[in-house]
């Protein structure tokens, strides 16, 4: 098992599969392996690493948005009028 993914899953409340689906595991491991917990969580949740957003994907895949069940603004087109519907509930 992958220690960085396991720790990330434990800290974020998102499963290893959910984390892998972001495509960011390798990038984040290189940045944050061994970093304090709060920094690892901030990176996964908001895409911010020490005052900067390293890639567009880091922003788009921010787990804070996924927790709420919406796309990060400016990254997805849910469709005309999609905003009328009731909100999607978070997966858990």
């Amino acid at each position, binding site marked *: 098992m992958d220690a960085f993914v396991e720790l990330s899953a434990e800290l974020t409340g998102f499963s290893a599969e959910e984390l892998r689906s972001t495509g960011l595991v390798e990038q984040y491991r290189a940045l944050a392996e061994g970093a304090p917990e709060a920094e690892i969580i901030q990176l996964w949740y908001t895409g911010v690493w020490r005052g900067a957003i390293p*890639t567009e994907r880091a922003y788009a895949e921010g787990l804070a948005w996924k927790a709420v069940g919406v796309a990060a603004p400016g990254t997805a087109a849910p469709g*005309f009028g999609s905003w009328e519907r009731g909100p*999607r509930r*978070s997966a858990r």
Partner: protein
Amino acid sequence: MRAVVVGAGFAGSLVAKVLGDNGFRVLVLEAGAESNEDAVSRYRKALVKSPLVPFRRTAAAPSSDYVVDTGPHSLASPYLRMNGGTGTAWTGITPRMRPDDFRTGDLGRGRNWPLSYDDLEPSYRAAEWEIGIAADADEQRRHVPIPEGYRYPMHALPRTFLDDAIASVVDGQRIDGRELLVVGTPQARNGVPVDGYHPDGQRCAGFASCVPVCPEGAKYTPHRTQRRWSSTVELRTRCAVNRLHADESGRVTKVDYQRYEDDTSGRHTRHSVEADVVVLAAHAIENAKLLLLSGLANSSDQVGRNLMGHPVLLTWGLMPHPIGPFRGPGSTTGIETFRSGPERRERAPFRIEIGNWGWGWSAGSPGSDTAELVAAGLRGTALRQAVAERVSRQFTLQIEVEQEADPANRVTLAAERDALGTPRPSVHYALSEYVKDGLLASKRVSDRLFEMLGAEDHTAYKPDDGHYFEHNGEPLRYWGAGHSGGTHVMGSSPRDSVVDQWQRCWDHPNLYAVGCGSMPSLGTSNPSLTMAALALRTAEHLVSRAR
């Protein structure tokens, strides 16, 4: 006829189009550079997603961050010097002004316009069709006079789930004797067209990043009008106008500008161009700066004065149940009833926007929520659930308060110079008691609305926050809306105004200053639509004079 238009933003692009369509040779001089292709990418990677952050800026033609702020308050309203101007980053909300907004002088607050709502009404229609506005005429008619039979070019955009949740509680209720009604806000973004209208660009698909950038081009920007320019319109970017020359009769003869190539330095070459007519469309602050630099149009001593903005009060809270924020356009409805009425004599009126993007503007959500919950020790599933619980119920009221024209609020030339060697604009700006009373009254209305909604109020203004102040012992704070106006004010007499009802400078028969700078009052409407209506009216006037 050779026309020089200074500024390729909202007003300049519209004027250039009408003139070009009617046989003028038009040269548009834009101080900023061409717009950048990577704005969406820059937005996504920006730590703070502020309005100007995605756009290319240059050392030679800096944007609003080069304005010297001398207080006592801060104007806090950004503007962008780039092809397309601030109309690239704008929110795309286009309410009309109300008829009484044109008569604020009669209230003893600010100034009257030399034209009425009825005079401007045909130009409103023309602007709404040129820009492409989605709204329902019957719905708008409930708070502003829209002629019978008129259709907006697109049907009203669907409301958000939040709009309906708020309307289902407050519609028909009363505050201070005013009946509440949630009303759809006209939008400059593509929806379903009416018969005979062909929208330019994609239909809004809900990227929820309209300010500052719509990734699919569903929001109107001046670039759309530029694509419709005739071949007689020539655009030159990176050309910062620094002086106009007039002959003894007052006719403007020549425009000087500085052309630069490099984004990072002030290195430039100097040029001049002759013109039969000159239209300044460079933004309220930049137009005033150019007139002051040239020593023109100022026999009334009003150039640069009467600077107004829209101080915005934000209030934010949690609805009793999840409503799904951060979806759709930034604001799709508002409460209009506090925009008018007898209280307007005593305190500034206001318009309440229902904000669809959580606490993004007011508190930096969801990053701020995450940080707070992590700091409180939450981890794992508990953190995930807490973020979902906190963010999914968020909403903000964005309340724009009118500011009356006051000659003491003004743009002057600073001693400091920019990279091209031109004096930077300096701004003296203060909120009056009238504005502060309006902000406080709007806070009280917001308190009542939160109560009705059963919303948990999280609004907090702290002394360390920017633009914090206390009024009648209550903490308040304002935000900037980016709506600067009044600096070349329109009036009915050359003694006390800079331009006439056609936005022509009283002192110079062939010099026009267009844009929000001409507006004697801003009312409580986002001003771009009114600026567009005025620009089209001026362009038609120029065409009819040339015939």
